[in-house]
């Protein structure tokens, strides 16, 4: 004799009837799953959006760029904060002159600065660099000119303003030819950069660029025994194929210049687009995973909520269960009925939560610079997972219901 008398469609209809009979309770039960799902989907969307944003920025640097950064690869990549200041301008010049596979070399050094124009003040990054900066980083000027070789030689007090800094200081006035003061040193504005947007965490729009030689002598006020220190050097290889050659040649040149004989002693390291992408990927994946893990906890709590309400429901419905058994329901029939109720609750909660999560992602896209989006795979997973949560947390109440003794159940009035 079959133990399951009731067919699946019938069970489904019955469960829907029962759940819609107590709408408030059903929706409250779903709430936990709704919140859990919405947060998982929006958090993962946020993480993915952040990842895409960062890799787009890295890709926008162009495929041929190399960054030469002070410090040892090991200590730097392990997140060590100890960055030794041992790259100098002369290193950059040597690379430009002696490495044939390299087209242009820019040196950058950033110091904090207080900028005054008449009675207006602004805090901004002061970036010392050289004429090649424009071509290496693919930047353009909006007005005037950039730093020239002559500026470098003469340590001229000329400044090129980032676009939004210029707007902030000068508003309607023409910045070109005006004098402003950087840390109390008078500079003449000779150019304004076009809008660049934030670039790998540096906001060039809100910075002021000056010749790195001028920065060393007038702003920093000292040079190391080896020359003018730089924060990092960026170089463009002739083409993508010569990238590896360039990296190899730069390494050899710098080792020679720094008197390094063994690779472990390197006091600089070279990053290209690929290594940057790998690093960024590692970080953003970990971040996404962490966000998802935190959000999953709310999903778990939602599951426990379902179990809790289902247990109460079994207790309240003992008479119903007793009656169903008296008129011929098998243990399996009751088990399936309660399981289906739990699964419907959590799957419906999952779907509603997913819709909310997708909406939340839309909102996050408006509030953050990155294009977040809900991936189909995450949605399918979330609904599947919440359904399974219903199944998992529904088992205990459903078994309790199925095991009820019909006589005891019927008598409980």
């Amino acid at each position, binding site marked *: 004799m079959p133990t399951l*008398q009731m067919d699946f469609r019938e069970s489904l209809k019955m469960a829907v009837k029962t759940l819609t*009979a107590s709408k408030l309770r059903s929706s409250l039960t779903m709430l936990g799953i709704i919140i859990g799902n919405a947060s998982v989907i929006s958090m993962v969307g946020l993480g993915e959006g952040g990842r895409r944003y960062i890799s787009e920025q890295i890709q926008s640097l162009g495929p041929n760029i190399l960054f030469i950064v002070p410090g040892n690869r090991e200590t730097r990549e392990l997140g060590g904060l100890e960055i030794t200041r041992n790259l100098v301008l002369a290193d950059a010049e040597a690379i430009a002159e002696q490495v044939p596979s390299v087209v242009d070399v820019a040196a950058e050094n950033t110091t904090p600065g207080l900028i005054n124009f008449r009675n207006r003040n602004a805090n901004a990054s002061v970036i010392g660099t050289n004429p090649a900066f424009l071509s290496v980083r693919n930047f353009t000027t909006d007005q005037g000119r950039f730093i020239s070789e002559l500026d470098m030689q003469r340590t001229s007090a000329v400044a090129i303003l980032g676009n939004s800094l210029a707007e902030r200081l000068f508003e309607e006035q023409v910045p070109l030819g005006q004098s402003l003061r950087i840390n109390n040193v008078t500079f003449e504005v000779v150019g304004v950069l076009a809008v660049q947007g934030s670039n790998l965490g540096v906001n060039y729009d809100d910075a002021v660029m000056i010749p790195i030689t001028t920065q060393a002598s007038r702003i920093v006020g000292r040079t190391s025994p080896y020359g003018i220190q730089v924060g990092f050097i960026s170089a463009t290889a002739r083409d993508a194929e010569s990238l590896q050659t360039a990296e190899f040649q730069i390494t050899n040149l710098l080792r020679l210049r720094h008197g390094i004989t063994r690779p472990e002693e390197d006091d600089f390291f070279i990053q290209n687009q690929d290594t940057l992408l790998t690093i960024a990927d590692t970080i953003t994946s970990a971040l996404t995973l962490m966000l998802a893990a935190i959000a999953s906890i709310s999903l778990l709590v939602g599951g426990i909520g379902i179990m809790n309400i289902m247990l109460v429901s079994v207790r309240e419905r003992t008479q119903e269960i007793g*009656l169903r058994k*008296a*008129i*011929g329901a098998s243990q*399996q029939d009751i088990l399936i009925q309660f399981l289906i109720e739990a699964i419907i609750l959590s799957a419906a909660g999952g779907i509603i939560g997913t819709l909310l999560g997708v909406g939340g992602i839309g909102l996050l896209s408006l509030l953050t610079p990155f294009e977040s989006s809900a991936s189909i795979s995450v949605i399918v997973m979330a609904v599947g997972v919440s359904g399974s949560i219903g199944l998992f947390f529904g088992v205990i109440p459903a078994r309790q219901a199925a095991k009820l003794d*019909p*006589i005891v159940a*019927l008598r409980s009035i």
Partner: protein
Amino acid sequence: MSSLITLQNISKVYGSGNTEVKALWDVNLSINKGDYCSIMGPSGSGKSTAMNVIGCLDRPTHGHYFFDDQDVALLNDDTLAAIRNRKIGFVFQQFHLLPQLSALDNVALPMVYGGIPTAERRQRAANALQQVGLGNRLTNKPSQLSGGQQQRVAIARAIVNRPLLLLADEPTGALDTTTTEEVMKIFDELNRGGITVVMVTHEPAVAKLTKRIVWFRDGEVVNAHMSPDNIGYGTLVE
């Protein structure tokens, strides 16, 4: 006439030691097919316990129970569920209708567990409600029906699978005199149609309408073949 229900030395004992309760003690009882029988006795005398055993809802601690020539002790729980579904109809004092379902759906419920197709279920449920005089109340929820109407829905549910046996534990206990008479009329008709009816009642006027009375006291059957004619208003006083 062949026997539908045979209780042989049936005992049902709850607990043990000091707290032991002999709800049924060495009960021998036989009820034939087509019988119309009421079970009477003081409160706590074991009437409901006996009904549960007869209805295959409960298993005795000792003795043998044969229902429709099957030894119930040899059957597993799911088989008993199937027997209850196909061969036994239950009517309870508290009706036990599901509040979220319409009268029609309540009546159709046993057929759902009997695996009967939807269209046939609706047809048969409507017929059963017609039979108890509620053909015009198919879509009402229990809360939209009077007590007597609710009990008639419960009776329709009990007979919809065309059972051999109708078991009713104080079916008129919650009803007034008029509705009691209506319900008894239905039972009478069902019995005439061939269904064996066994009913627990405290009301002599109700018992009088049946063919035979079984009297319980302290878990034992003290009289298995009392004539309804001997029942009077003083009977319950003892």
